[in-house]
């Protein structure tokens, strides 16, 4: 390895560690790192900008705009309160139903957005029931990570994988949604086992919940109809985007444009307030950093190292990717991790043939997304949920979360191992 590569690797690892420690803002770190790679001539600006995956960027921005508008209709809040009432105020049933709804929302919305919508409602319900909101907050955070794994647009790692590996929305639907459904059933049972006995409440408390009038939650009916129409169109578009020969970002961008036009009357800047620009630029910086690593030839070297290690056996490579991704994602941000793994797996594909690496993509997606539950710092949704709880006077310690999260992670990774083995590996 040349000295450039060595410096490149060292810088990349330092930035990676700094991002994980959360001492500095990760967006600033990734942008500064990307710029540094260009300043040091590891990668030319032209190549660096070409390595930004605009499909990912525009899909994220467009979905954030659509969700930002839909959020204001009170729809999500309506569904969450409805769930509490359907459960007839029984805490453990509410918890399970809220978790299932969180997972469902999270399959289509960003995980953090989902918990920002659901967690306040969950805390409110718990407080009105007179029980601790902490189990509610934790179960919803975990559910958001589980649900996000189910679809192409559910979690940023999936968006990146889909874009890079040319896997369409339906591929995710056929390959990941089934396993997530199984996992959600198991997860519901686990919640029941964990919390069934811990929550007893009086009839008067239940009545408080039954008194909620969720229909009043809907704020703007015309806007709700517009949002739901566009959202349905976008999801329909995702379902047939392969057939239409359109990228998901095109569908989402069209939907966002249409919804903004239909919403009208507002300053256009207001629509973009709900875009998390910090996250968007975090991605941009990361793409440049990883593009630099590819350019320096480092990814190629690691790929052949992994292949040597597993003798090119896809069975062991696949399970290795699943579990290593799971463990890594429990401690570090899964977005930079997946961004680094993508070119690596692509390179393995160059050696063994692109058809054979399909199981690797699903292993990467499952490992990276499910691993986020491993610890409190494993996923942004966990951190945000704990932050929300703390603001309301309920402190969730690292271990309190990790106690539940690690068990769920091990169980879900085990289920994934069986799934991957029997669905993809047994025949090769």
């Amino acid at each position: 390895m040349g000295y450039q590569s060595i410096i490149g690797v060292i810088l990349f690892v330092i930035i990676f560690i700094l991002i994980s420690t959360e001492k500095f803002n990760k967006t600033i770190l990734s942008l500064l790192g990307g710029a540094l790679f260009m300043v040091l001539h590891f990668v030319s600006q032209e190549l660096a900008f070409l390595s930004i995956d605009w499909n990912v960027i525009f899909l994220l921005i467009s979905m954030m705009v659509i969700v930002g508008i839909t959020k204001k209709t009170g729809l999500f809040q309506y569904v969450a309160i409805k769930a509490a009432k359907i459960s007839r105020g029984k805490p453990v049933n509410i918890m399970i139903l809220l978790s299932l709804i969180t997972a469902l929302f999270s399959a289509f919305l960003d995980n953090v957005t989902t918990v920002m919508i659901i967690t306040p409602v969950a805390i409110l319900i718990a407080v009105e029931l007179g029980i601790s909101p902490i189990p509610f907050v934790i179960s919803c955070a975990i559910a958001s990570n589980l649900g996000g794994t189910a679809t192409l647009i559910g979690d940023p790692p999936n968006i990146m994988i889909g874009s890079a590996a040319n896997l369409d929305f339906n591929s995710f639907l056929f390959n990941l949604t089934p396993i997530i459904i199984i996992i959600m059933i198991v997860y519901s049972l686990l919640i029941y086992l964990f919390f069934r006995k811990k929550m007893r409440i009086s009839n008067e408390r239940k009545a408080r919940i039954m008194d909620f009038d969720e229909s009043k939650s809907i704020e703007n009916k015309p806007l709700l109809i517009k949002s739901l129409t566009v959202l349905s169109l976008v999801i329909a578009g995702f379902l047939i985007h392969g057939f239409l020969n359109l990228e998901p970002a095109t569908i989402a961008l069209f939907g966002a444009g249409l919804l903004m036009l239909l919403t009208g009357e507002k300053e256009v800047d207001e629509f973009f307030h709900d875009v998390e620009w910090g996250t968007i630029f975090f991605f941009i910086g990361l793409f440049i950093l990883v593009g630099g690593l590819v350019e320096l030839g480092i990814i190629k070297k690691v790929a052949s190292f992994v292949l040597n290690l597993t003798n090119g056996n896809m069975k062991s490579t696949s399970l290795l990717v699943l579990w290593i991704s799971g463990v890594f994602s429990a401690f570090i941000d899964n977005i930079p991790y997946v961004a680094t793994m993508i070119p690596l797996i692509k390179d393995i594909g160059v050696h063994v043939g692109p058809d054979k690496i399909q199981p690797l993509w699903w292993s990467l997606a499952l490992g990276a997304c499910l691993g986020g539950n491993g610890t409190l710092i494993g996923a942004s949704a966990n951190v945000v949920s704990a932050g929300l709880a703390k603001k309301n006077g309920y402190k969730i310690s690292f271990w309190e979360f990790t106690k539940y999260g690690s068990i769920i992670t091990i169980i879900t990774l085990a289920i994934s191992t069986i799934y991957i083995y029997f669905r993809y590996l047994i025949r090769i």
Partner: protein
Amino acid sequence: MKLASLLNPVLVKIDCRADSKEQVIKDMLNEAYKYYKYEIDKDSLFKKIMEREAISSTVFDSGLFVPHVRVEEFKDFIIIVGIPSFPNALNAKMITLILASNTASGLYLNVLSAFAQILKDEDFFKKLKTAKNGADFIDFVREREFLVKKNLTIEDIMSKDIISISPDSNIKELIDLMFKHNTSYIPVVKDGRMAGEVTVLDVIKSGIPNYAQMLSNLRFLNTLEPFDGFLQHEDEIPVKNIMKKPTVVLSKNSSVIEAAFELTQNNKRQIPVVEDNVIVGVVSYMDILNKILRS
């Protein structure tokens, strides 16, 4: 603003005639129209000045004669000064004809009081009479630094009766105080120094937990347990828990426009006026309404 800055040498006449009001005003108007073009014609302006003069004479005992007119169509502020030979038929020592727009009332009054000061200062007025021409006259006025009285400042409009509270008082006392004095804003003072501020909104907000504030609305609720609970525990929560550091403060000589700007930009209703960390007044948006917009 200096008075001298408002004067124009060609519009200062030394040793002018002062036989009658009509003659003086006509002469002065002729001078003004020699140099400028105005939106309103000379004759109607003259008529308006005389109409004003008919209501009450503007010749003061001090010898100052201040004919003036304020009309909407006149978009300028012109002072024509005359020093007549004394004695004269009008018994005037100094004549100032002021042509102004009707929006210039503040400036107009301030200019008049500056001229009154000149006449009061007998020695200076003697010196002023030695001026050979308008330029000399203005130089003398400039040397003495006669000021058109400065604009209103916050000190003039702020309320100085400050009802404050200690950070260690409880919210019950705070609410009682607000209720008693019918005020929505109370500065928090500790050891004579400003420690923070609280508004009624801060009090109400403290009763709504953070998670409820994050929801898009609370219409589905009739009651919220923590809010009811808050009302029962108001005497247990100290003011320091809900007070905020003031984000904007003004000083006594801040201008009215600065206060208006800060109120609107920061969406505030009151801003504390602070000197060396000690609160000396509070300016509220109602002060702007009552003392500026409808004074």
